């Protein structure tokens, strides 16, 4: 019952944190000059400026402005994106989907490779392969993602030209109907193999680069928790039963070692979201991160605010889900032990 209580408490906390985030985003948008500055021109008279202020409501007290803005957000009105020359609410979904497609594959790579490498290293503690993997994971944590992405671009675009830039080949992309916005899924729904190949060819390198950082984090955690589990009594008794070592690791130690690793996977989602900003810029991926960077450079407030809001919500929800899963898994371990 403790677990249910915990989950309910976490769920109740979420709206408050979300509200705090909206306050923070709103406060941010009000530092560094008037929010209507981009509409002002030199030859405007004070009356015209005042008219503009009234039109956008910036003459009202801040709390009133905040409530008005929040009401707009709730109705799906996120303002006008100067970068895309369209309402934010029209641009956002396609951008978000492009990022989600990249991030999903990236996290899959991070988790699969991370758990694999971590298990391999942990089972061969202090042997040569363990050291190699450790060096790899420590450099993974120190590697500037933007630089790693560019080095991969030099390697797979200049030297061995197999990786294209962007998200698709426009000729192939226009052949299919886009039901979901996910290029890979849509190409399967259209039963169009050449579109699927196009989608994967464009996705592969950016997703690998994006996943690399998270992989290092997951592998490190997996290794240390597997090393810990290997010292437990139940591992010895499994060995004493005469189980082969592979089976001891796969069926017993790895299962328990996965539990703490799940927390790190949740955390590495944040890493992944941040990374997508950099990766999308390098590989010209038309996602949320690239859109936001353009907004940032041009001082487009509506774009920046929408980006911060959406990423914060995605991040908080993912973290909540991970915490809840963890709570249930952890309880099972406690019950199993007792």
């Amino acid at each position: 019952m403790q677990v249910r209580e915990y989950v309910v408490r976490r769920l109740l906390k979420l709206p408050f944190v979300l509200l705090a985030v909206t306050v923070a985003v709103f406060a941010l948008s009000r530092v560094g000059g008037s929010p209507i500055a981009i509409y002002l021109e030199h030859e405007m008279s004070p009356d015209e400026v005042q008219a503009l202020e009234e039109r956008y409501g910036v003459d009202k007290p801040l709390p009133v402005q905040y409530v008005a803005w929040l009401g707009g957000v709730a109705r799906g009105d996120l303002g006008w994106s100067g970068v895309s020359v369209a309402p934010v609410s029209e641009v956002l979904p396609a951008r978000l989907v492009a990022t989600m497609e990249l991030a999903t594959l990236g996290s899959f790579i991070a988790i699969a490779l991370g758990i694999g490498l971590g298990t391999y290293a942990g089972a061969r503690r202090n042997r040569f392969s363990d050291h190699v993997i450790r060096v790899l994971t420590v450099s993974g944590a120190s590697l500037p993602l933007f630089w790693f992405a560019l080095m991969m671009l030099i390697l797979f675009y200049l030297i061995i030209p197999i990786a294209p830039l962007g998200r698709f080949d426009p000729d192939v992309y226009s052949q299919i109907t886009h039901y979901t916005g996910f290029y890979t899924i849509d190409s399967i729904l259209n039963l169009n193999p050449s579109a699927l190949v196009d989608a994967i060819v464009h996705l592969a390198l950016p997703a690998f680069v994006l996943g690399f950082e998270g992989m290092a984090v997951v592998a490190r955690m997996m290794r240390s928790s597997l090393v810990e589990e290997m010292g437990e009594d139940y591992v010895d008794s499994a060995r004493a039963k005469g189980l082969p070592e592979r089976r001891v690791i796969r069926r017993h130690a790895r299962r328990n070692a996965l539990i703490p690793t799940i927390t790190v996977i949740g955390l590495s989602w944040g890493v992944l979201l941040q990374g997508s900003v950099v990766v999308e810029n390098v590989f010209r991926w038309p996602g949320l991160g690239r859109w936001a960077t353009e907004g940032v450079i041009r001082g487009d407030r509506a774009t920046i605010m929408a980006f911060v809001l959406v990423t914060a919500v995605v991040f908080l929800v993912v973290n909540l889900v991970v915490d809840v899963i963890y709570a249930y898994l952890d309880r099972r371990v406690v019950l199993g032990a007792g």
Partner: protein
Amino acid sequence: MADAAHVDHVSPLGGRWQSFTTKARRIGDLSKTALKSPTTLAGAVIIVILIAMAILAPLLVEGNRPDPYQLPRDWSAINVPPGTPGHPLGTTSEGGDVLYGVVWGARTSLRLAFIVVGITLVVGTIIGSIAGFVGGKWDEVLMRVVDVFLAVPELILALAIAALLGPSFRNIIIAISILGWPRYARIIRGQIIHTKENEYVDAAHVIGDSKFRIYLKDILPNTITPVVVAATLQMGAVVLFAATLSFLGLAEAGIAEWGNLVGEGQAGIVSGRWWVATFGGLMVFLWSLGFNLFGDGLRDVLDPRTEGR
């Protein structure tokens, strides 16, 4: 859990800073132990070389006038590859010397790291101390603020702050400083709450020491160990973080900073001009690797409980 801190307090009449110096000496001794590990030593060597480069920058490459933190422009040598006389590492698309950017970039990074770590450490210590030592409502309110800060990925917030303040390297420093303190606040608060439980703190109350004196003499010194580890790792992390922001175009054009060098070199890569981005990014990597290796080694000896996590 056996911490040398307990030993530091045998003489209640000792000077106020005695326990600080004892702690510092202990950390110094342990750092020597840490250096026996080859990876930690490698980290230390990288750090020493890069810091020496930062300090000796004016002697290595003559400073640009009037602003040495701007790349000198040589309009007669645009996009020249490495090995060109006068430009051993080549130039950018605007004739900026890459070697100059690499050397003076070390100075920019060192300055940035000291400023940001200094500010966030002081602010984090004050806020963490209030939360941990005063406790009660203060603790509750301050820790909720910390929660909100740590709830959102920091690059996203930094991007927003730096964008709204306007693109400049100074604003990058401000943005990173705003985001850096909650981590220290949390470490220091936890450490203080843990230390408060000790009997020697009760003893200090009994002999009539003032609260502030107890805080300064008996409690604060115990926070040093994890803070030293965190600060070492942060020295590397902030440079990487700032480089990412300036790579994305948030610093002024032409500044002698590694991330900016990569940003300026990015467009040239598809046309085969690999050198600008490669050398700039390599420096960020080395800097960050050096502090990570050294910080990890330091943690293993100073704070063994968290080893490998």
